[in-house]
């Protein structure tokens, strides 16, 4: 057992070296080069972000639109039980979907990287092809698949397993399936580079020492990929938190996430200040979760390094 764990720790020791390369000794040309993306980010991301923050304080005009002002009405409405409940539900379902997606995508990607190129390439192309489907198409396709009129239950009826077709949408599981489906390819593509770089000698060593493939997977591959697993998990979480069509189409109202309400407020109720306030809140919450997870991850990583060094 201890023998198998050693390679994981050895590899982690080498990690910080990579991070420190762009440190204090960076050249002027390098800094200027970095300024371009920083500027682009500031103009195209922080600019609209600031505008949205400002809009969230605008005064709403009943039966009309809104006017510039500094009022807290949109923010206080966000504090109502209904929206707090929606926020908690959104976090719960997205964390759950992120966990399930990573659970499926990780072993899938691992096997994918170990395949011969002949099989690996077509599979990768299939995964990439799934990315071309928009959320709208995915949502309506699952609506048909899970629906009563032309869905899978019709096959069950044809096979004699059911007496009449049933509808599995809208519902909680329909939303989970839809969200996991759109997130899966992104998750695989996030994990793929890291998993394909894992040295075969490490797994071979583990197996030579008598570990079963399953034990090698859990005791060598998973610890080696911890950082990437966390990254993939966070990516899916943030990605699904922003999805609003899947929830709309495949969920009942109690399964609508905050993103659905942002879209409804902005599009159907022309209440842009309130939509902006919900969006700001959602961004803050997701940033906080990403921040805390990353901080915990790095603290744990440093602790482990210290332990190994001692």
């Amino acid at each position, binding site marked *: 057992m201890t023998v198998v764990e050693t390679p994981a720790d050895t590899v982690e020791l080498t990690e910080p070296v990579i991070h420190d390369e762009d440190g204090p000794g960076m050249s002027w040309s390098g800094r200027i080069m970095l300024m371009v993306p920083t500027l682009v980010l500031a103009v195209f991301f922080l600019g609209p972000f600031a505008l949205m923050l400002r809009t969230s304080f605008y005064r709403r005009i*009943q*039966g009309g639109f809104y006017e510039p002002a500094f009022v807290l009405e949109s923010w206080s409405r966000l504090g*109502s039980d*209904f929206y707090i*409940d929606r926020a908690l539900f959104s976090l719960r379902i997205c964390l759950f979907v992120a966990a399930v997606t990573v659970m499926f995508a990780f072993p899938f990607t691992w096997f994918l990287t170990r395949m011969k190129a002949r099989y690996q390439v077509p599979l990768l192309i299939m995964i990439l092809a799934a990315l071309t489907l928009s959320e709208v198409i995915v949502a309506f396709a699952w609506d048909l698949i899970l629906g009563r*009129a032309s869905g899978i239950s019709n096959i069950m009826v044809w096979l004699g397993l059911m007496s009449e077709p049933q509808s599995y949408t809208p519902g909680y599981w329909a939303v989970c399936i839809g969200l996991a489906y759109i997130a899966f390819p992104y998750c695989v593509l996030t994990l793929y580079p890291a998993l394909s770089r894992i040295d075969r000698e490490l797994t071979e060593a583990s197996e030579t020492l008598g570990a079963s493939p399953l034990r090698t997977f859990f005791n060598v591959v998973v610890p080696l990929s911890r950082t990437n697993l966390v990254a993939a998990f966070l990516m899916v979480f943030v990605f699904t938190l922003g999805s609003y069509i899947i929830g*709309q189409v495949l969920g009942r*109202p109690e399964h609508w996430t905050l993103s659905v309400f942002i879209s409804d407020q902005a599009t*159907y109720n022309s209440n842009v200040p309130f939509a902006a306030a919900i969006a700001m809140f959602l961004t803050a919450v997701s940033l906080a979760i990403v921040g805390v997870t990353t901080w915990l991850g790095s603290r744990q990583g440093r602790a482990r390094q210290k332990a190994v060094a001692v």
Partner: protein
Amino acid sequence: MTHFRRTDPRLALPGRFNAPADQSRRDVLRRLGLTGAALALPSSLLAACGGGSDEAEAGAEPVAAPSAADLTGTKIKVATFGGFFEENYKAIYPDFTAETGIEVESISEPGGGAWLIQVQQAVAAGTAPADVSMFGNVDILKASTGGLLMGYSASDLANATYQAEGFVRTNDADEVIGVGAASWYITLVSNTDRVPESPTSWKTLWDSQWLNDMALNNQAQTSFLLDITANTWFDEGTTMLETEEGILEVMAKIAELKDNVKLWWRDEATAQQDYNSGEVAIGQFYHDITQYAASIGEPLRSVFPEEGAVLDSGSWAITKTTEQPEASLVFIDWFSQPTVQERLATTLGTSPTVGVEHLELTAEDYEMVSGPGPDAAIKPYYTAYQEREDWINQQWSEQIFAG
């Protein structure tokens, strides 16, 4: 059921689009207009472009009827609700172009307020996504309050006089901002394969036999479920919606039916698909496009419930930032002709907004599009949606959408 009759409108209504009397009247008005310095420029456009109210009042003299002859080759963009609705309007545009020389680019507009926000953003940026748009009643009030619409004088439109009472809408400055385009009824719609015999009362929406089998619109202000429920279950009817307590009571009743709802639709296309395929058995929908869909073979029927169908309407309105105010006025004027509205009634199945005394529809045709007529219909209490908009939205979310 009786399938909706579709005729080639050009055969059904021969030669009425080129009524010489109408043309000559317009010529006279045009000459009058040409003598004026405004050259048929609508009064309010001056105001909208930064002129003071004095100019607007001066321009409001009844001399500025739009001239079709001067506008040959002009192109306007017209937005109507996408789907069957737009398709039917599109089929009429060539006749409009042939007669006026104005070309029309048809734009598919999303319903339920979504188009409004696009127009609002565009006007803020100084552009116009469409010169003329069709707006529902709640939306046109919002657009007017938000200052998105061009106002003009009623005399700018020769055919506005045909409109039935209430279909020429004005703003606070007494300028016209909307003219009736079409009325429509929201009725009880069902899939004939799933529902052999249609119920005749809105009360059926509360019947547990439709568990997870119903479709309703998800917005309080476009579904008019408050009005339907008030008129179905409460003796006070629409007056229930005058107070917050009354509205809450009505909402509590609506909350009782939510287990039946499989689809809370936002856009018509999604609902249409689910009704056609039988994914949902029954629900609320638009009488006009249901009749149209049935006429092309979809297994659908529309029933005017005994408590009354909801009567709502759409108005043509001109975006304030349009660069084609004159052509836009000609467009609205042309579509206000009783003959054109009759044609829409027989093709699209919308109910005309022009006074019934100007129509030559047969009683059978009229019943086909209007059922027992406007007197028997539920007329939405728009004031509630206007004055208590966000409060209703919040309560609606809490009562109907909370888990």
